[in-house]
């Protein structure tokens, strides 16, 4: 299992190459500048945005704390609605399920909805090895596929390409795999979008098998959700008779009503829109409407490893909006390829090492250093992933791993000690406050991180929350960090003026320690690692 591109050099080397590409930097500055402005405007329209972020983080934390039971519930709900559930421990198992389903229908092609999970597991390459063509139908994925390129952004994998480059790719490559681009194609974005429409329409109309991911999976109902813009997702989810969805196990949310929080957070954070053009939900098989054979592959591929990391597990809250990429000063300058993974940017810098583990390869180990720790990613994250703290912790893990490597001296060096110290300080609001008043390395590091930390409201693992409209917090969380002024635990948040109507409570009494155990094997499917929290 790997989440990184084969043969990629470590980040510093790849970044040096990328920085020399002035066209790349121009393209990225234009694109990220555009999306930052849009995001800022639509986020400003929501007066309780911070409460929404807290709610999103709390729902995800709750889901992760009880992941094993939510997954079993999801499996049961899906089965009751006619779906077939498969469990995949790693990329190879997930790819095998998809190719087995495709081959059972005798097809030599599938159409695909843009999906980070399928990119992560290298599904297209695995299907190609079985003689099955996987057609990417998202415009940016199509650009990457036709250009024989690598993705460089979570939302817009072809963000590194400008309109003129896209025009050239379409003109030269579309005809080789289907309907050619019009002879008079220009670099006008509407003409490029039209060319994609014409090229892919014939593939949509004839496809018998589609492959998707899912943005969310609702445990209580078995509902899957795909959020998109172009309608290519709807085409794949609706027209073929067979649908296989590869879903990371961290995509589970407990209840249907939890979705309302994420359908407010995701579009505004992702494309800077009040709502994305299309959101599709489906619950198993709907007789007479859409695919009549529905498969769901629940994918681990390192997620239980990440869940067992007490600092890093918060990365599993990620809803793949890519807001952290768009605000990151490092990403804006190097682009996504330098990260060497389908998950670039700040979230990639923590997610890749969390999924694969540190000390395995030099490229992955270089990623936690691909940051200035400025904290812009945390501010932008709709589910409040404290990326800088995880980066610092991972740096310490990398140093530990290298120190304990064979042949390495077994005495911590100054860098290792410093990273451990910073990590220790950041794990406590009280220590952070003390350190901020101090001097030297700890003082500087914690002040830097303190610029984006709001210790009075930061919630790692919620104790007991009650959410009203927009998922507003109704009660204090016993695990809230103390504020730097010493008002530890703090006063409850100010009463919310719109706290009416629907409320829900959840919480857990458990400790913060995580572990993973082998879960029960599912009849007719692969056994998997189902996480439990001790």
């Amino acid at each position: 299992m790997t989440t990184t591109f084969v043969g990629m050099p470590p980040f510093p080397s790849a970044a040096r190459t990328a920085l020399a590409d002035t066209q790349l930097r121009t393209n990225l500055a234009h694109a990220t500048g555009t999306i930052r402005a849009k995001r800022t405007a639509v986020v400003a329209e929501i007066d309780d945005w911070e409460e929404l972020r807290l709610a999103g983080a709390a729902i995800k934390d709750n889901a992760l704390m009880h992941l094993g039971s939510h997954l079993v519930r999801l499996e049961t709900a899906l089965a009751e609605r006619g779906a077939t559930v498969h469990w995949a421990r790693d990329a190879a198992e997930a790819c095998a399920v998809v190719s087995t389903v495709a081959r059972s229908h005798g097809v030599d092609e599938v159409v695909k909805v843009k999906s980070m999970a399928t990119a992560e597991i290298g599904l297209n390459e695995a299907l190609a090895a079985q003689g099955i063509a996987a057609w990417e139908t998202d415009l940016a994925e199509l650009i990457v596929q036709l250009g024989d390129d690598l993705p460089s952004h979570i939302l817009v994998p072809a963000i590194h390409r400008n309109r003129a480059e896209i025009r050239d790719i379409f003109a030269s490559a579309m005809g080789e795999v289907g309907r050619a681009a019009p002879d008079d194609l220009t670099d006008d974005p509407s003409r490029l979008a039209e060319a994609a429409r014409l090229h892919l329409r014939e593939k949509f109309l004839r496809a018998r098998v589609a492959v998707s991911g899912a943005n969310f999976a609702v445990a209580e109902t078995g509902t899957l959700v795909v959020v998109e813009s172009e309608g290519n997702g709807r085409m794949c989810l609706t027209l073929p008779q067979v649908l296989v969805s590869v879903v990371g196990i961290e995509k589970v949310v407990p209840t249907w009503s939890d979705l309302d929080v994420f359908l407010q957070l995701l579009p505004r954070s992702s494309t800077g829109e009040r709502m994305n053009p299309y959101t599709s939900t489906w619950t198993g098989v709907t007789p007479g409407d859409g695919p009549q054979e529905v498969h769901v592959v629940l994918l681990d591929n390192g997620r239980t490893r990440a869940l067992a990391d007490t600092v890093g597990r918060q990365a599993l809250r990620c809803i793949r909006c890519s807001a952290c990429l768009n605000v990151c000063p490092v990403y804006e300058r190097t682009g996504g390829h330098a990260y060497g993974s389908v998950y670039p940017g700040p979230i990639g810098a923590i997610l890749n090492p969390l999924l694969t583990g540190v000390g395995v390869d030099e490229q992955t180990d270089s990623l936690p250093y691909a940051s200035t720790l400025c904290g812009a990613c945390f501010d932008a994250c709709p589910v409040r992933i404290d990326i800088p703290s995880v980066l610092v912790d991972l740096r310490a893990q990398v140093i530990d791993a290298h120190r304990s490597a064979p042949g390495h001296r077994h005495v911590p060096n100054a860098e290792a000690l410093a990273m451990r110290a910073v990590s220790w300080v950041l794990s406590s609001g009280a220590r952070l406050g003390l350190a901020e008043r101090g001097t030297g390395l700890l003082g500087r590091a914690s002040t830097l991180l303190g610029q984006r930390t709001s210790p009075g409201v930061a919630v790692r693992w919620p104790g007991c929350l009650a959410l009203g409209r927009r998922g507003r917090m109704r009660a204090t969380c016993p695990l809230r960090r103390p504020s730097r002024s010493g008002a530890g635990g703090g006063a409850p948040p100010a009463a919310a003026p719109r706290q009416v109507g629907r409320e829900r409570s959840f919480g857990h009494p458990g400790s913060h320690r995580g572990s993973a155990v082998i879960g029960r094997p599912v009849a007719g499917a692969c056994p998997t690692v189902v996480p439990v929290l001790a």
Partner: protein
Amino acid sequence: MDLFVERVEDYRATVTRCAATDAAAVIGSVLGAGLPAGSKVVVPPDLPWEVVDGVVDSGLSATELDCFAAVVTSATVAIAETGTIVLTHGAGQGRRAITLVPDMHVCVVRADQVVADVPDAFALLDPVRPHTWISGPSATSDIELSRVEGVHGPRTLHVVLLT
């Protein structure tokens, strides 16, 4: 209601307000103005309004649907804050495919179906039904992160709001 109209139009969709008694006439004029003569229009089996020359969906294949220029449906819920219409593909809305393949979607929304925000919409929706949330015409931000309307879904969305 005004916010809903403003937000839908912000996506470069068109909204026409009319009295419920005028719905059929307005649908006819919207189709007449937006389509070349002879264009085919598909409708779900139980649409409450008559569509002149509308072909009732009887399980048309994707290829057959591709010959239709427009579709007329009702909706389940509409969300003012985000300018979204939600289809749950029951009565008057038809299978998911019929509102996807034709290039123009005329969606009739009653005023009493418009709710304030996303949480209000969720409270009214049945998760077991398939849902399609539609916020403007098909669009993409994949070229330089600038929004362009018109990719694979209907490139024209016309909302008829019955007031």
